[in-house]
């Protein structure tokens, strides 16, 4: 498969701060790629380099095989971008801003396909295009960028925390749009710190931490890396004796719990059956847990 975005050893320094410290990211065509990390990990810096808004300090970065800094203009004809914190012009109406941004991308706004798409999106996002920019709330400014991005087709969608101002209903609309452009064959790089969003939408996930990719893979592959949690009702901690594969065994509030490597789940089921475990719960790891694992040391240090 074609690689749409590739970086290797990408670094970016702002003065003494190493915003990116050898980032290796690879996104193949047709993928919805989750780019996951806490605030300040370097997600936005990476995106700005990929869009040619910032210049890399070292390493390699390519988009569609081109140099994102040198070939910015030609590359941008194929890219739709939604920034995390959308600003729009205070004295332009939302509709004007959508049309302007679409035209600057090189798309034709007279095209009936565009007109229909814009109308559909405005209805779906419940967006009033005639208000002046300064009158829009954060969520509505975000809708301007989203409508401008989705109304005309693109090969690559770069979305930097695109739903941070949207209410849950609008998030559903957003997910439908992602599904639609993926079915049309486009590639999506979706940066987020909302785990449920990435879990729902993404084929692959790269976890960024302190300017480096800490982990990358499909959700299934990453699940493999963490343990399944098992819990059941029990009278005391004695119920946990004799389960050899169990880690982190604990008893609290009338429930015994332990974690287990995901491929060993089947092996403990007979043992649980023998104990007649009631209220049994076996939960696959959520991305929350993946996250905690990668940032767990920070949590222990008491830092955010």
């Amino acid at each position, binding site marked *: 498969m074609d690689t749409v975005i590739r970086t290797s050893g990408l670094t970016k320094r702002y003065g003494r701060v190493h915003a990116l410290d050898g980032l290796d990211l690879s996104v193949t065509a047709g993928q919805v790629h989750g780019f996951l990390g806490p605030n300040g990990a370097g997600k936005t810096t990476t995106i*700005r380099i990929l*869009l*040619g*808004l*910032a*210049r890399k300090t070292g390493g390699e970065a390519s988009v569609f095989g081109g140099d994102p800094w040198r070939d*910015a*203009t*030609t590359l*941008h*004809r194929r*890219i739709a*971008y939604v*920034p995390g*914190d*959308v*600003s*729009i*012009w*205070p*004295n*332009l*109406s*939302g*509709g*004007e*801003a*959508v*049309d*302007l*941004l679409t*035209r*600057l*991308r*090189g798309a034709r*706004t007279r095209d009936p396909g565009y007109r229909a798409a814009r109308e559909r999106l405005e209805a779906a996002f419940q967006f009033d*295009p*005639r*208000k*002046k920019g*300064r*009158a829009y709330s954060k969520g509505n400014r975000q809708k301007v*960028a989203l409508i*401008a991005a989705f109304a005309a087709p693109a090969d690559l969608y*770069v979305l930097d925390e695109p739903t941070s101002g949207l209410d849950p209903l609008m998030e559903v609309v957003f997910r439908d749009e992602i599904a639609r452009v993926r079915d049309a064959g486009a590639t999506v790089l979706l940066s987020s710190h909302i785990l449920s969003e990435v879990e729902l939408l993404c084929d692959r996930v790269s976890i960024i931490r302190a300017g480096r990719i800490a982990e990358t893979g499909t959700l299934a592959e990453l699940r493999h890396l963490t343990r399944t949690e098992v819990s059941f009702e029990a009278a005391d901690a004695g119920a946990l004796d004799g389960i050899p594969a169990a880690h982190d065994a604990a008893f609290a509030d009338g429930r015994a719990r332990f974690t287990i490597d995901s491929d060993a789940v089947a092996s403990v089921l007979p043992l649980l059956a023998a104990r007649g475990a009631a209220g049994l719960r076996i939960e696959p790891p959520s991305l929350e847990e993946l996250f905690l694992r990668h940032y767990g040391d920070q949590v222990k240090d008491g830092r955010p």
Partner: protein
Amino acid sequence: MIPLLRQRLRRDWLQLLLWVLGAVLLAVAGYGGVSQSYGTVADRQEVLAAVMANPVILMFRGLPSGDSAGAFLAFEDLPWLAMLAALMSTFLAVRHTRGDEEAGRSELIAATPASRTLPTLATIVHGLGANLALAALTALSLIGAGMDARGSLLTGAAAGGVGVAFLGIGLVAAQVMRTSRGANSLAVWLLVAAFLLRGIGNMAGTPSDDLTRIDSAWPAWLSPFGWAEQVRPFDADAPWPALLALAVGLALAAAATALQSARDLGAGFVPERRGRAAATAALSSPHALVWRLSRGAILGWAIGGVLTGVLATTLSALAGQVAGENPAVAQVLEKIARAGDLDEAMITVFFTMLGILAACAAVQTVVRARQEEAHGTAEPVLATAVGRVRWFSDYAVVATVAVLLVVGAGMGAAYAGLAADDAADGLYRAVTVAGLGQLAAACVFTAITALVFVVLPRATLAAGWALIGIASILGMFGPLFGMPEWATDISPIAVTPVVAQGEVDLRGLWWLVLAIAVAGAGSIALMRRRELAGDG
């Protein structure tokens, strides 16, 4: 109130200090200029007599109130001192009321147990304090220079009174308009109108028999600047007109407070119009966007250009009628213009102002590029198929168009004035040369501000306006304050080609062209390597 004021002073102290120092500097420089250039009573009488004969000068000077050194200083300096106080106060008023409201800071304060009018009340106290400081330090610097104490104090009070009046005007403008940009424009237009009204009132006034005083006509009484001049420091020393300005300012401030409690946070009294649902076909390129964002401001400057152009030639003709009787008039104008013939000198003076207006229009447009970048609206544009250099040069192009429009409007109006007066052919050439020369000067400001934007983005706004301020002071007032020629020649507006005694004098044209070429080419070359520099 106290914590709020303390926080504002932390934010504001440097800016306020610069305004106050500017006023002190103006007072001291004025004192130096008067004692150096107009040291004797005879010198001063000569100038005042010339002014009576050619009242056009009264647009740029104060109210003649006798031939003493002090009264002459007030005549030279007081309108400008008052102008500084007025500008400081309107910007202060808008910045801390509508500006904070737009940025969402007022919402945080309104959510505390503090009253909704607290920000407005704090701004009133803040503005009164700033004007008190300006008045006191101006007075002290004059006393320090050896001037009479009562006159010095009243000079300060007159300037401070105008400041308070415009504090009130700024506060009301901030209530009426929905954006700080709108409120600032409204207040500055009112300021310019008040300044002109005062000049017209003085021009239409009645001179005394000894030709050293004027009793102003009624239009001067409609303007806070007029009230300040009626104090006549070092002459009549009447405090009550300054008190009138103070009272009007406080009344307007009270009105603004009442308006504040009558409306919703974030709302204005001028309703927001609904926009278009879709963009017009014209709004489809980066330069169309720049034009759309800048056109209102540019048209405002162009209207200023028309006014300046009309005055340049119609007043010039008027001045020509009296020049024969009053060689002293010509002498004063020559001093400003360093040129020969009176009509030509008038054109040079007014076209210097036209050049400043054009430079303002251009610098404002280049500064907008920085505002777009800091505000975050440059990013979505640069993420489309618009390159960095293209994006940046579109601001430079629109800035140049702004210069052409403002200077063009002024030249057109000046030609029309000449045609109406059946003027000599030579003057058409003077207008053409002065206009094209100021075109070059204004482009120097465009190119240098653009270079600052590329190299030191965060300094763009301050550098752009400071350049214009310094160049205006050097170019317009340098000769009057007795500054050395090399100092005034630093100012681009002072070295443009002029027509003097029928001859075209190119003066520093090639330096201007060189500066434009170097700064322009440098900024475009460096922009290739520059990344987007966001946040404040």
